[in-house]
């Protein structure tokens, strides 16, 4: 059963990833990318790494996609549609993707046996974060508070 879902979501992730690249409408592409990220999160779930799965959905599916869509909506999409594909960009992107693909294949080949999944749980992360590293964790919250106040105060328009 787990194996079935693993392959199903794996296929979905690849297919939606392809759709994200091939789609001419950028917003639709962004939504396809969101689906790809969520499917990837499901893949993590099916292989037993629940925590990474949750983080994948929250960070990529939640924050990063929203950021992408916001950035896309500030641009003039009509103008982008008319622009022809440039051979230089496409070949550079293809080259990078090829290198990345080869790296992943090489990594998968050199992997011996099933990787242990003991560090993927939430507990292993939470315990150092909230016990051992409690002080820096709390100081980070002060830092975020100061940074937020500062951003609002500095960024607001002067009347």
């Amino acid at each position, binding site marked *: 059963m787990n194996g079935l879902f693993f392959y199903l979501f794996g296929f979905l992730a690849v297919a939606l990833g392809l759709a994200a690249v091939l789609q001419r409408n950028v917003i639709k592409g962004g939504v396809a990318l969101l689906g790809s990220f969520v499917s990837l999160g499901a893949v993590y779930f099916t292989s037993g790494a629940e925590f990474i799965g949750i983080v994948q959905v929250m960070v990529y599916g939640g924050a990063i996609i929203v950021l992408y869509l916001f950035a896309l909506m500030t641009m003039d999409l009509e103008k982008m549609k008319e622009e022809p594909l440039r051979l230089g960009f496409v070949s550079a992107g293809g080259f990078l993707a090829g290198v990345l693909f080869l790296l992943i294949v090489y990594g998968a080949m050199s992997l011996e046996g099933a990787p242990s999944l003991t560090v993927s749980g939430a507990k292993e992360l939470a315990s150092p974060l909230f*016990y051992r590293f*409690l002080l*820096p964790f709390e*100081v980070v919250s*002060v*830092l975020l508070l100061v940074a937020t106040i500062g951003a609002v105060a*500095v960024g607001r328009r002067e009347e």
Partner: protein
Amino acid sequence: MELNLSLFTPELFLACAGILLILIDLIIPSREKNGLFALITFGITSVAIVLTAVYSPFSPQEAFNGFIKKDFLSGLSQLLVLFTLLLTVLVSYDYLERFKTNYVGEYYYTLIFASLGAMLMIEANELATLFVSLEVMSISIYVLMALFKRDYRGKEAALKYFILGSVGAATLAYGFALLYGITGSTLYPEVAKALSSNLSAAAFLGIALVLSGFLFKVGAVPFHGWAPDAYHGAPTPVSLFMGAVVKVAAFVALLKLFFPVLLPFFERWGEVALIFGLVSALFGALAALGQENLKRMLAYSSISHAGVILSALATLPALAVYSVFFYLFAYTFMTIAAFGIISLLTVKGFKGENLSDWRGLYSKSPSLALLSVVIFMALAGIPPLLGFWAKFYVLVALVKTGKVLPALIVMVASLISLGFYLKPLVYAFMKEGKEERVIPGFSAYAAVLISSLVLIFLGLFPEVVSQASLLSLASFLKGVM
């Protein structure tokens, strides 16, 4: 899990007070904000000073699983930070009366958070804590620089400092990451233990990156580029605050980090610090000679002072802690007084910051002119003021460890610095100026007066500071050995 929260009381108090001030900010009408906030912040700081004095043990104690370690050195340095905050509030009240900002509340509680960051940085005993507390301090200071209305110079300075400061912080983070990767721990004692058995090229790279990050924070050559613009552009009370607090926090953190971690390799590291220090001391003094703006001149002079402290760091362990703390103590009060008096004399359109604005100061306000003599002569290191003793002990430490040539270079640098410290006095006493009344604000005047009196009295009785430095040295070594 050993929290030992009671040791952390002063910092907790300061953090809670800062957060409460954010809420209070919402209900106070903006008309009375400046006075009320200055008063509240003054009160909070006074309480924090008492708490810090109570909770700084002589024999070192750890809290938060050893993430912070308090001893007499950190306690005294924290008191220096808080005292700077106290006098900054006095100077700021006066400054905010003359230069308007929509963010009075933000200004005061960001000052508190910046001091909290500096306090945490001083007592940090772990790399992650050190990094985040450094960022709390730095980001608060970037914000403080940009808060004033129509002060585009301040905003420009804040942006410059922010961008360069981020690069400096990144350097530091890379260094910490390398050290963590090599040693498998972020606690100082464990890092030290792992490094003492195996010092690889990667470890050297990590240490070099960390050292560069610190050199950036204290503004030593070759990472000094931000200092003149930041000090010049920032509102004067903020220049005062960062001039004193950042130096104290960075140097004490450097001592606490590098002593346990690098004691076995002290020889090699000591020489590097010495070279950087001497170059900074000479460069700062030479570059300050041609400055027309007093804040810019003080920025270059702070580079020179940082260089002197760095070369003091290079002396043997015991002497280094002693002379560095003594120098930091003196430097804090000199910085408060010098920027304080500039802030006092600054009126609309930043008039009063330039040398030419000091013409005929003596005829306008004899008391201010006499105070400026005390301040600038202390900075130049003229006996019997406190600045002299600070330089004196650095020179003694250098000569005692057989570094006679570096001692001579430090002396040459301070002779050169006498040249530019005399300039404002020449303008104040010997040049005729227009007859304009100077009406100094009471609170800023009090701050300048207090710090000048400290410079005079502790200059007459340097044993007090000397004993304090000795005690902090003893307490610090007790924790390291």
